[in-house]
């Protein structure tokens, strides 16, 4: 167990996701406690907890909430971001499948704190079991009288709608998400205005990642002070890490912030697949910069440890890469993805993604030119902070991260018209 567990702290059984099992573990008791608090005090508690968002940006949750103070007569919305499109990430899915009521209770508490009457769970259209589980949990909550009418003992009412996406990575971007709910093409929006000022149908809206919300119940139950005892001062609490790639035991693990990265990989996750040597790791979703094994040897899984090393924990989508993997082919898979997912609105991303994809394809076809590497850098730089949403930046980080660490493989491929690693993406047995 990589540290204390706050979310994955129960045994998963064929019924552990049900209302009955959740209640048996103390579920919906914290809701009662929360509804007896003033909404502002809930926000205060969440702020004091130091909870950082788990969608990838690690933005302080309390600070986002603080902009949207409850105001009777003013319509506010809450959206749980269950789009989970960042390659390497599959932890919100764990919560939806195994702890959907934790999300429901957290959304009730959050909505109460923020003056929200209608909330949404935006779930990517491809998810099958997670969708059925969260919809079933919501149906159970309605049947139990917790949704759709005043929660017993209070005058607070919440409706939750599960809204299915239909295949688009940018729906994981907060403004793309709400534009999708509006029934239009999910184009992200420029800011200002912030979504907490003008969001869904131009009303103040908070969008939080599923895991961020899942933490709310625990924070209110134990209090901010107790919560801060878990993790580190700068990274309180835990993070659900989705680990995949060339690792022996891929899956979702809850890691207490501050836990040793090397220990996590070598012990908790069973070490490298087939006993291979580790080459590098994508720390938190493909939009974070790769770090070599040497670079992470003494790092802990915390923001204050990983950020200065030149990367970030992002969405916790950790992809482990073994020695012998061709980083040129790997980058091609990523650029193909970004090109496919670009919404096409703004110039640098729309043109830049296609450009980078064509360059990497040309390199892989043995027609690379020495200047291609600098061109990939230039396109990445021209997408850094210049686009409507973060996708341009993300593609740039992924590219620059790999080029910075493995430029030699690209130079080799261009000079020799073939991969230095025999084009390997898999880890040999």
């Amino acid at each position: 167990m990589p540290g204390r567990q706050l979310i994955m702290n129960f045994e998963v059984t064929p019924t552990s996701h049900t209302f009955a099992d959740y209640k048996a573990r103390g579920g919906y008791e914290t809701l009662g406690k929360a509804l007896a608090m003033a909404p502002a005090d809930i926000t205060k508690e969440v702020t004091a907890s130091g909870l950082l968002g788990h969608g990838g940006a690690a933005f302080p949750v309390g600070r986002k909430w603080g902009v949207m103070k409850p105001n009777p007569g003013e319509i506010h919305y809450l959206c749980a971001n269950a789009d989970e499109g960042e390659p390497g990430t599959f932890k919100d899915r764990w919560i939806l499948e195994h702890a959907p009521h934790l999300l429901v209770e957290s959304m009730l508490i959050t909505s109460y704190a923020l003056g929200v009457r209608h909330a949404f769970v935006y779930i990517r259209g491809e998810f099958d079991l997670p969708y059925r589980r969260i919809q079933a949990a919501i149906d159970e909550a309605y049947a139990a009288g917790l949704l759709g009418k005043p929660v017993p003992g209070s005058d607070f009412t919440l409706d939750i709608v599960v809204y299915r996406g239909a295949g688009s990575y940018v729906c994981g971007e907060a403004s793309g998400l709400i534009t999708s709910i509006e029934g239009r093409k999910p184009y992200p929006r420029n800011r200002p205005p912030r979504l907490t000022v003008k969001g869904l149908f131009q009303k103040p809206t908070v969008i939080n990642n599923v895991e961020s919300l899942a933490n709310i119940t625990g924070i209110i139950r134990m209090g901010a002070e107790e919560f801060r005892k878990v993790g580190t001062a700068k990274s309180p609490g835990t993070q659900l890490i989705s680990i995949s790639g060339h690792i022996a035991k891929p899956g979702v693990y809850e890691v207490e912030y501050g836990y040793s990265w090397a220990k996590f990989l070598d012990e908790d996750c069973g070490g490298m697949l087939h006993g291979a040597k580790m080459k590098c790791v994508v720390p938190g979703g493909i939009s974070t910069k790769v770090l070599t094994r040497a670079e992470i040897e003494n790092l802990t899984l915390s923001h204050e440890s990983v950020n200065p090393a030149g990367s970030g924990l992002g969405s916790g989508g950790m992809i482990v890469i073994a020695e012998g993997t061709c980083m040129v082919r790997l980058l091609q898979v990523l650029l193909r993805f970004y090109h496919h997912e670009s919404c096409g609105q703004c110039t640098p991303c729309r043109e830049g993604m296609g450009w980078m994809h064509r360059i990497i394809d040309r390199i892989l076809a043995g027609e690379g030119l020495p200047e291609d590497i600098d061109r990939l850098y230039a396109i990445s730089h021209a997408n850094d902070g210049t686009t409507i949403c973060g996708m341009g930046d993300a593609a740039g980080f992924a590219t620059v991260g790999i080029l910075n660490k493995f430029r030699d493989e690209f130079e080799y491929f261009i000079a020799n018209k073939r991969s230095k690693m025999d084009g390997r993406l898999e880890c040999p047995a």
Partner: protein
Amino acid sequence: MRHLIPEFEKMKERFPAGFEESLVLPCLHRIQADRGFVADEDIVALCEYLKVPRIQVEEVLSYYTMLRREGIGKTHLQVCRNIACSMRGAEGVIEHACKRLGVKPGATTADGKFTLSTVECLGSCGTAPVVMVNDAYHENITLETLDRIIDGVVEERAVEIKK
């Protein structure tokens, strides 16, 4: 589409007031689940029902990868080819699927039984490689389990692969 309107009316009840336009996507999902794709007449009927401009529905339909305007094979095999799946054998799965079905990704078999697609990350990286068989995720796919899925469809029996 008209026979779905009672369902749409129930769907509407769950949404807040003023959210008629929101129904575009859920209705399209339902129409496609019903017919297998969204037909021109469905678009016309939906625009009438929701009072949205036709171009809005056309834009939405053209944008999302899961929505289609033409029918496909009875079984849609969607193989993820994103990073974790590629690192755990997706390319071999895709190659094998192409060989077994005799089509390239994006195409439908002549007998209409299968459509093969390659897709981006499905959020199942820990159990890579992953294939969606119609709506269901089938994880930890091997060439053997892929064969069992394909054989199951061909022989028209249910196959439980899942995880």
